[in-house]
């Protein structure tokens, strides 16, 4: 359904994203994980064809959706896919709806635009979708304004907008990061249900490994604008090859016991201006050798997964 190969993104002379590849079939959930600044949102925007909004562009690689090359697609054609066959959910529901418009029209417009529905048909559809997303009193909600609703409710509205035209692919960029913990779980479960019921292909971007473990079939681990490991979730969790992936998995709290504290990975994420040479992770890597700071590692394949590390699998 969706295949991304060697994606590279540049803003003028700087290239914050390169060498990102993955593929995704209907009914599958792909997780993209990585700390903040690793290039997850840029990947999402690339798929949606929305990089020009922030002044970026795709400089290499390809994105193939349902047999169609997206990177060279003309804008009017792309526009039909956006909201029609590709849905997007963004991070902060507090700011993702137009505060001057009622909820109803903001959702209705998708069905009107892509399914050619009349206002009345579109509203009926909106109410139905809001209902399936377990939003109480969908009819009255349509006449409310965004500021009158909670973050969790707003995120459901955003999901409703993304689903209104029955898309094939849903890109969810940290859909729960800005929400309360209890609401987070609800939204993740909701998305998981949707994938099963509607046979969606879901790209779930998160920085939370435990969310990946719960919901995803495949995972891509990103660091400093590159994919550094990918594969089926069971394989990655069972035998992570890359030290960064190992560290991320090590950060997941195992139980609810009092004395267990949350661990982070020591050091900070590099930004575009100071992406390290060689393996970008080497300054923070416990197993780093001399070669790691000079040569960029290629992917080492093991079974269905692959990791970009000079010592993939060797260190544990």
């Amino acid at each position, binding site marked *: 359904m969706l295949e991304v190969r060697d994606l590279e993104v540049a803003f003028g002379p700087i290239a914050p994203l390169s060498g990102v590849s993955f593929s995704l079939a209907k009914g599958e959930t792909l997780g993209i994980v990585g700390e903040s600044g690793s290039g997850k949102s840029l990947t999402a*925007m690339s798929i*949606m064809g*929305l990089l020009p*909004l922030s002044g970026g562009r795709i400089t290499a690689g390809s994105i193939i959706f349902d047999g169609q090359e997206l990177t060279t697609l003309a804008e009017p054609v792309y*526009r*039909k*896919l*956006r*909201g*029609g066959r*590709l*849905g*997007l959910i*963004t991070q*902060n529901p507090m*700011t*993702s*709806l*137009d*505060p*001057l*418009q009622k909820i109803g029209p903001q959702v209705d*417009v*998708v069905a009107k*635009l*892509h399914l050619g529905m009349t206002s009345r048909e579109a509203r009926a559809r909106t109410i139905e979708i809001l209902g399936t997303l377990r939003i109480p009193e969908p009819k009255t909600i349509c006449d409310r*304004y965004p*500021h*009158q609703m909670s973050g969790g409710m707003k995120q459901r509205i*955003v999901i409703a*907008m*993304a689903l209104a*035209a029955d898309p094939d692919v849903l890109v969810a960029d940290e859909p729960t990061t800005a929400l309360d913990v209890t609401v987070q779980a609800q939204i993740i479960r909701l998305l998981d249900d949707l994938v099963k019921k509607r046979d969606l292909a879901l790209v779930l971007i998160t920085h939370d490994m435990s969310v990946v473990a719960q919901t995803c079939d495949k995972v891509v681990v990103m660091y400093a604008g590159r994919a550094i490991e990918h594969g089926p979730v069971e394989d990655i969790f069972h035998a992570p090859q890359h030290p960064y992936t190992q560290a991320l998995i090590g950060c997941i709290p195992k139980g609810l016991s009092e004395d267990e504290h949350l661990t982070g990975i020591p050091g900070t994420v590099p930004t575009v201006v100071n992406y390290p040479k060689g393996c970008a992770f080497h300054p923070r890597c416990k197993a780093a050798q001399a070669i790691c700071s000079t040569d960029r590692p290629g992917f080492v394949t093991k079974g269905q997964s692959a990791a970009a590390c000079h010592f993939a699998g060797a260190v544990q």
Partner: protein
Amino acid sequence: MLIPVSISISVVIFMIVHLLPGDPIDNLIRVGSSPDDRARLIAKYGLDQPLFTQYFRWIAAMFQGDFGDAIVLRRPVADLIAQNLPYSLQLGGLAFAFSSIVGIIFGTISAVTRSAAVANFMRGFILLGSTVPGFWLALLMILFFAVRLQWFPVSGARGWESLVLPVLTIGFGGVALVARVTRVALMDVRREDFVVLLHAKGLSSTSILMRHLLPHAMLPVVTILALRIGWILGGAVTVEFVFGRPGLGSLLIRALGQRDYPVVQACLLMLALAVMIGTLVGDVAQAAMDPRVREAKK
């Protein structure tokens, strides 16, 4: 809110007018009149009373809809106002409409254009329009369009031709101001998160601009326009005078020269009233456009 403001404004207007040196009687008596004549006139118009008493007489009369009589012009002030107000309303209204409509269009073009030439032209225009003083522009336009090209009359208020130059003069600064506010507001709102999702819904840039960005950009524009109603009327005062048009501005300037207290007071009060109405209309418009403001007001 409106009442205390009105009272303080009336006090300030009254004080300013009466503290000016000179008095209207000088403009009224003929050469060779006796000091007795002068004293009689002063008593007739109550100018010998303490200021305090004069103020309350004025206010009391005003509440009965009586603006009093002009001292020098010797006619009811209400008549003078009724005669001149329509001209000012016409000029002010047109200048206001011109500033808003052209300003919003220019601001939008300058925010969305991809052509460097258009962007630079707009930037130059906005800079010029915000800095060139109105009276100077008026004189330039009279020299060029009225005297040299003779397209429009130099002065007077006959027909639509006589309105063109005054409206342009007041409007020039107004257009620049509205264009600047529109442009900045559009650039700001375009960076907001929700715009990404609008694009992600598959909406075209044009419909996003018309249905979402412009309504947002209109919030600060409405605020500034409401505040600038007074400024536009203030502009009308000098512009009417320069173009020799009848109107409240011309009336005010003439009455000021003659220290015709009742007329000056009435004119200033009308201007102050217009400013207050402008602010009020601005608030109402804000609430009509923004549900968050409506909520906060409840």
